């Protein structure tokens, strides 16, 4: 295994290292130490820094706005409660993303059972959403909408792996740990996702 971890996904690496620039890593470490030292206000810095990325991740996983909001909140609250378990020698985002992924998986499992019982659709926006949906408010161009919708249409494991690996710049090993699968499975997810996305984006 290389010092940087097993990173042979079959595709080039994103430019960020573990999704965090070195300046960001230092700032995050200071904030974590401050929170541990009793300065709870410093946790707000971590929230501001990661809420956008984490909400995008949970939104992609749950495909449900209220669900994503609930999971994002819970992920931050759990991270705060268990900050003593975080190893500050490692990047913060993969740790909190793992927390969020597990909570989103629980949410999906819980709501899957509920929707089966009630007959309601769990994922109403499984089909490509309308470009004017509030969910897409931050996506500024049509290509961005199309890309988001194409990724959102992938199966759960594939779309989560794509977000964590490409958008968030996490290593394959970290993505595998977050998803609770092997590195080989993550590479398969990414390979299949790329293939499907090429097909979806190239079709007229």
């Amino acid at each position: 295994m290389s010092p940087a971890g097993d990173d042979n996904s079959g595709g080039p690496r994103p430019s960020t290292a573990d999704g965090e620039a070195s300046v960001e890593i230092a700032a995050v470490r200071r904030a974590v130490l401050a929170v541990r030292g009793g300065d709870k206000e410093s946790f707000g810095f971590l929230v501001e820094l990661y809420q956008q990325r984490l909400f995008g991740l949970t939104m992609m996983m749950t495909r449900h706005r209220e669900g994503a909001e609930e999971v994002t909140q819970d992920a931050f609250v759990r991270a705060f409660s268990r900050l003593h378990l975080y190893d500050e020698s490692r990047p913060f985002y993969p740790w909190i993303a793992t927390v969020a992924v597990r909570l989103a998986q629980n949410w999906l499992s819980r709501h899957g059972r509920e929707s089966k019982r009630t007959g309601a659709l769990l994922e109403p926006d499984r089909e490509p959403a309308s470009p004017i949906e509030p969910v897409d408010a931050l996506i500024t161009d049509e290509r961005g909408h199309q890309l988001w919708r194409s990724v959102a249409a992938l199966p759960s494991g594939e779309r989560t792996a794509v977000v964590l690996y490409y958008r968030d710049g996490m290593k394959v090993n970290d993505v595998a740990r977050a998803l609770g699968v092997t590195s080989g499975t993550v590479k398969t997810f990414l390979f299949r996702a790329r293939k499907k996305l090429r097909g979806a984006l190239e079709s007229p």
Partner: protein
Amino acid sequence: MNTLESELHDLQGPAVPAGLSATIASRVAHIDAQHQTGSSPAGDDKRAATGRDRLAWPLLLVGLSVGLGAQIYRLASGESTLDLLSVRTAGSLQRVVDLAQPSPTLAVLGAGVLLALTGLFALQRDDLRRL
């Protein structure tokens, strides 16, 4: 990096709901306040469950002791005889009728059984709650 991977790297997500960070801050402050006072809903439940355990076990033991004690006293005083075979073979209905006659020892026996059952079900209820 090809075009698709480059685009995925720059994948834009949905806007964060308004007030998300404020809600998180409020929840974190609430948790912090609970840590400061050393209480939490989970901790309160645990303490209550421990209290019930402490009450349930003596109830169970006292009930069993009273029930068994009363039965031993009935045997020792000759009020009752240990004759398990006869219950099955003959006169079993009469023995049940005799046993059901009101008497102080029967009342003590009943109270003992009631206490034992109360303790037993209290323990089971706690076990079920923890599942």
